[in-house]
């Protein structure tokens, strides 16, 4: 097994065991989606209209919640120092960690989104669109979050700063995710345009995220 595959498997195993955060994210997602109708009222027509926005916001926040554990646990137990000293390039190592994080935190959110769509009176077409946009967009959220996680890894109370750093950078992903979902339902723009830009954002942050995170880790932990 290559070191990167071993790293990914290790992170995934840790995430599903006691103390890992794999299912807490989905639980939080469910809670947020349950709370919103209490705030805006049980009007099904309204919920169907703002449903994609609720799902996207919920997924964004649930994803944010898991980020402070992305590198911090490894920093606490010292394995991050081993990763820094290892022969594999640090950029690839943090990219592998981000991938494992996305599989354990991001992917469950994508799978849960159509089920939660039922609660929000979304028709199957809209639910499918939201799930598809989340599938294309959550990698961007994870990779942008990776930068924030790397910048705040050594801080004692890094979680709040991490949110403040990462949320403004997530605005484009949110805009194109919700626009693409709405485009699939009603429209005025074709689904492909915002969806293509969303995929572009994901690909771009998959490059910038690990690079910037590796720089931040090298500069911050010497």
């Amino acid at each position, binding site marked *: 097994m290559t070191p990167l595959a071993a790293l990914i498997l290790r992170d995934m195993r840790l995430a599903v065991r006691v103390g890992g955060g794999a299912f807490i994210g989905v639980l939080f997602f469910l809670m947020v989606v349950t709370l919103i109708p209490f705030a805006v009222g049980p009007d099904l027509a309204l919920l169907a209209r703002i449903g994609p926005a609720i799902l996207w916001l919920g997924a964004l926040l649930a994803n944010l919640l898991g980020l402070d554990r992305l590198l911090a646990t490894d920093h606490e137990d010292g394995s991050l120092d081993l990763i820094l000293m290892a022969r594999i390039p640090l950029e690839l190592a943090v990219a592998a960690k981000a991938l494992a994080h996305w599989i354990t935190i991001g992917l469950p959110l994508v799978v849960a989104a159509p089920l939660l769509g039922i609660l929000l009176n979304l028709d199957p077409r809209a639910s499918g669109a939201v799930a598809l946009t989340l599938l294309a967009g959550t990698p961007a959220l994870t990779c942008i979050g990776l*930068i924030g996680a*790397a*910048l*705040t890894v*050594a*801080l004692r*109370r*890094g979680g709040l*700063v991490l949110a*403040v*750093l990462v*949320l*403004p*950078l997530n*605005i*484009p992903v949110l*805009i*194109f995710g919700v*626009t693409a979902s709405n485009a699939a339902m009603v429209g*005025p*723009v074709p689904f492909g345009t*915002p969806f293509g*830009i969303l995929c572009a*954002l994901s690909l771009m942050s998959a490059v*910038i995220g690990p690079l*910037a995170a590796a*720089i*931040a880790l090298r*500069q*911050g932990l010497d």
Partner: protein
Amino acid sequence: MTLINLANPSRVLALSARILPWLTAATVLAFAVGGVQAYFAPDDYQQGATVKIMFIHVPAAWLGIFCWMLMSVAALGTLVWRHPLADVAAKAAAPIGAAFTLMCLLTGALWGRPMWGAYWVWDARLTSVLVLFLMYLAVIALWRTIEDPTRAARAAAVFTLVGAINIPIIKFSVDWWNTLHQGASVFRVGGSTIHPSILIPLIAMLAAFTLLFLTLHLAAMRNEILRRRLRTMLTVQAAAAT
């Protein structure tokens, strides 16, 4: 004096002490010229006297963007050359940039009230400036959470550069989002070319505000250098006391 000499804080302090009075005088002079020109500039036939808000609003917006560019150059100085002055420049610039961006937002709100009938509309430009302001606050928050100044400088430098890549993307996506939601309900400013009677005062005010920024930035850099000295002295004192 080469760039490497500026790594010595004492030299920077001495040099800036010589430059600062001249820069301050130039700023006062530029504001006097720009202020008089702005005062005598004609009112707009549609907007009346409120158009004069532009003479503060536009320079503030320009400096909000300019300051992030300056911070990005300083960030490169921090990460690539490890230049100590770059750390100081970046740290001193962030609150000033945030202040100018806030000034742009506030004057925009005051201008928007008589023109659009609301202090705030989710217009594309307003929204992207608001996001820029949030980014400034985030970078200041990062500076204030990491105790060790050199490590804080590196973290802030990485974030500043990521921001420099992302701010144009955010601007693009907000424009996209806005055209989708708002359409042409908000009237366009600056669609036509600006008449010289307004353009010349505007350029004068732009120059004056830029000089003000440079003055404030240099003074803030001096303060930051002195603050670091004080910090080191206190640390040494505390270490000696124990």
